[in-house]
C-alpha cells in the first residue's frame, strides 16, 4: 500500500463498506479498497455512513428505512461511482431505494441517480474497471462459491466473481449442489425463525461439505457469517472468506470466526 500517484488524476470511487463489514470484518473493507486501487481508482470512504436500512425496510418500517435511504443518498450523491462489497446492500440501494422513496419525486429522482452509479464490487471490477485479467492474487486450494440471493436475483451476479476467481493462481473452484439456494440468513429472519434457518443452513453446509472444498467464498458477509458459524458449530473444517479478501490476496488474517493467531 505505497501508492504515491497523485489521486487527482484517478477516477474516484466512494466505498459503502456496509455495517456488517464495519462492525465485524474490517479486512473485507480493506481488501475492497486494495482491489479498487489496483484497478486504478482512488477510494474515498464517507465517514458518516452507517447502514443501508435493510433491517427496517425488510421489517416493514418504511419511514425509518426511508430516513436511512435519504442519509445514504446525501452522503454519496456527489460521487460518480459507489462500490459496495455486498450484493444485498447494493441491491437495496439500486433496486429498493427508488421504490421506497416513490412518494417524493425529488428524492426518488435522487435515488435513481444514485442507483445508476452504485455497483456491487465484483460487477464493478468485471464490467467497469475491466481489470479482471490482471488479478495478481494467489490462493492455493479448492474453494466453493455460494451465490447470495439478493446479488444473484436483484443484480444478476453469478459469473462475475467466477471470472475474477479464475485468474487467481492456485485456486480451484468446485461448484456445490444448489449453489443458488438461500443459506437461511435472510437478515432478521435467522433470529426470528432460528429453527427454520438452522435447517436451511444445515442443508447448505452439507452441500458445501460434499464438494470437498477447503474454503467457502461468497460476496455477502451476512451469509458468510451464517454459514461459517454453522460449520464451526458442526466442526466442519471449511474456512470462510469474503471473495474480496481472496481476490486482494488478503487472507493472511484468520478466516471468518477463526481463532486469532497468537
Amino acid at each position: 500500500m505505497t501508492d504515491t500517484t497523485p489521486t487527482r488524476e484517478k477516477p474516484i470511487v466512494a466505498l459503502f463498506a456496509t455495517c456488517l463489514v464495519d462492525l465485524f470484518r474490517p479486512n473485507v473493507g480493506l481488501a475492497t479498497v486494495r482491489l479498487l486501487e489496483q484497478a486504478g481508482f482512488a477510494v474515498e470512504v464517507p465517514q458518516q455512513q452507517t447502514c443501508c436500512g435493510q433491517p427496517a425496510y425488510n421489517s416493514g418500517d418504511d419511514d425509518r428505512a426511508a430516513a436511512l435511504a435519504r442519509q445514504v443518498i446525501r452522503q454519496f450523491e456527489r460521487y460518480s461511482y459507489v462500490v459496495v462489497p455486498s450484493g444485498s446492500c447494493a441491491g437495496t440501494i439500486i433496486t429498493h431505494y427508488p421504490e421506497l422513496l416513490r412518494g417524493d419525486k425529488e428524492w426518488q429522482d435522487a435515488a435513481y441517480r444514485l442507483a445508476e452509479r452504485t455497483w456491487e464490487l465484483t460487477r464493478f471490477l468485471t464490467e467497469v474497471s475491466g481489470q479482471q485479467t490482471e488479478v495478481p492474487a494467489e490462493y492455493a486450494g479448492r474453494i466453493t462459491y455460494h451465490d447470495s440471493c439478493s446479488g444473484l436475483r436483484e443484480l444478476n451476479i453469478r459469473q462475475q466473481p467466477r471470472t475474477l476467481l479464475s485468474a487467481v493462481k492456485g485456486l480451484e473452484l468446485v461448484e456445490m449442489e444448489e449453489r443458488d439456494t438461500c443459506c437461511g440468513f435472510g437478515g432478521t429472519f435467522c433470529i426470528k425463525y432460528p429453527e427454520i434457518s438452522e435447517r436451511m443452513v444445515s442443508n447448505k453446509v452439507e452441500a458445501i461439505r460434499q464438494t470437498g472444498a477447503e474454503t467457502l467464498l461468497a460476496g455477502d458477509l451476512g451469509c458468510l457469517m451464517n454459514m461459517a458459524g454453522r460449520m464451526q458449530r458442526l466442526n466442519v473444517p471449511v474456512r470462510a472468506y469474503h471473495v474480496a479478501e481472496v481476490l486482494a490476496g488478503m487472507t493472511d488474517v484468520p478466516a471468518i470466526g477463526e481463532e486469532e493467531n497468537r
Partner: protein
Amino acid sequence: MQFSPQQFKPQARAALQDQDLQQALSRAKSGFIDKRRVAVEAFDDFEALRERGKRIRNHALEHMDIYLERLEAQVQAAGGHVHWAEDAEQARAIILELCHKASAKRVTKSKTMVGEEIGINEAMEADGLEVVETDLGEYIIQLAEEPPSHIIAPAIHKTRQQITELFDRYHHRGELKKKLREIPELVNEAREVLREKFLTADVGITGANFLIAETGSIALVTNEGNADLTHTLPRMHISISGIDKVVPTLEDASTLLRLLARSATGQEMSTYTTFVNGPRRDGDPDGPDEFHLVLLDNGRTRMLQGQFREMLRCIRCGACMNHCPVYAAVGGHAYGWVYPGPMGSVLTPLIVGLDKTRDLPHACTLNGRCASVCPVKIPLPKLLRQLRSEQYREGLMDSRNRLGLAFWGFFATRPRLYHTAAGLAIRVLHALSRGRGRFRRLPMAAGWTGSRDLPAPSRRTFQQVWKQQSKERGR
C-alpha cells in the same frame, strides 16, 4: 379446513421434528425443480411466454367486470347456471342448496383449492352427505383426515409407508401384512374403490383452472382423469371458482395452460385437459343434466383495487412453493391454512386478515427464488414486504422487534453517535471473545447462537482502521 396460521411457529417447529414429513419433503423437492427446469429449457423462449402470460392475466384483471359478464351470458347460453358468492358462507349455502335440489346422497369431488378455501367438505358432511375426493392425493388425505399440504400435490407430505398403512386400515380392515406396497398396486386399489363412487354419485364438484369468457367454458386439467369422471357421470355438475380465474379467450387459456403444466410438474401438457361447456346437450353421449358455476369473491375484488392486485394473476401452479427453501424445510401444514408457501403467505393474510397471520409475511428470507420461477411474474417478495409494512403501520409487529428497530434506528440515523457507540461495543465484544474468534453462546444473541457460532468482531471497526491508515498514508 383447519385454520391455524397464528400457530405458524410451533407448527413449523413440529414439522422440523417430524421424520416422516422430512423424508417425504426431501424426496419431493428436487423432483419438481429438476422437471420444471428441463421443461423450461426445452421450450423456445420461455421468458417470452411468461411475459405473455403476465400480460394476459393483467388484461383480464383490468377488465374483469366485462369478462365476467360475458362469461355468465355464455354459460347461460349453453344451458348452465351461474351463482355469485360474496364470501365462503354464501358459497357453501349455494352448493348445499343445489345438493338438496338434486336429492344428493353421494358427492364426488375432483381437486379444488377454492373448495378448501370455503370449507365445503366439512359443510357437506355436516349436512349428511357422503363426500368422496377422487384425486389420488386428495383421497389419501381424506382418509388421513388431513388438509392438503400443497396446492397441486396435496399428499406430498405422506410417505409410501404411511399410505400403505392408510389403505390397509380403510380397504383391508388392518389385516394386511405388508408394510410397504408398490405404487402401481396402491394406485390400482384406489382406482377400484373410486370407480364405484364415480358411477353412483349424484353430484360432481370440480374447481376450474380457467374460466373462458368468450365461450363460457371452464378449463380443467388433471393427470388422473378424475375430473372428467366427476363432471360427466353424476346428474349435476357444480364447478367452484374464484372470480380471478377468468380469461378472455380460448387462445389466452391455451397460452396459460402451456405455462401452467411446465411450471407445475414440468409437463408440456397435463395428461387430461378438458373444456367443459354447460350440461349435456341433445345427442351428447354423456354429461350431467345440470351445470352450475359458483363464482366466489371472498376478498378478491378488494385485492383488485389495492396494491396487491398482482397476486390475482396467480394461476395456482405451485412453482413458488416448490422452489421455496422455507416450504422445503417445514412443508405446507405449518402455514395453517389452504394456501402454503410464498403465494399462500401473500394470499392468506389478504383473505383472512393480517392480524390472524402475523408470521406469514415474515417467514421468508426474501431470497426471491419464487418470483424468478413464477409463470406470471408475480413479485412475491415485494408483496410480502408490502404486507410487512401494513403490519407495521397497523401496530401488529410485536413490541420486542419494534423496540429493537427503534433502538437500532436511533443510532443508525445519528452517524457520529453510531460510530462512537459501535467502536465501544466492538471493543467490548472483542475483549469478551478472548481471541477465540467466535462466540459459542452470547445471551443477547441467543437466536443466533442457538444453532451456530457467532464470529467475533475484530478489535476495531473498519472506519477506525481506515481513519488511522489514511492518516499514515496521508490520504
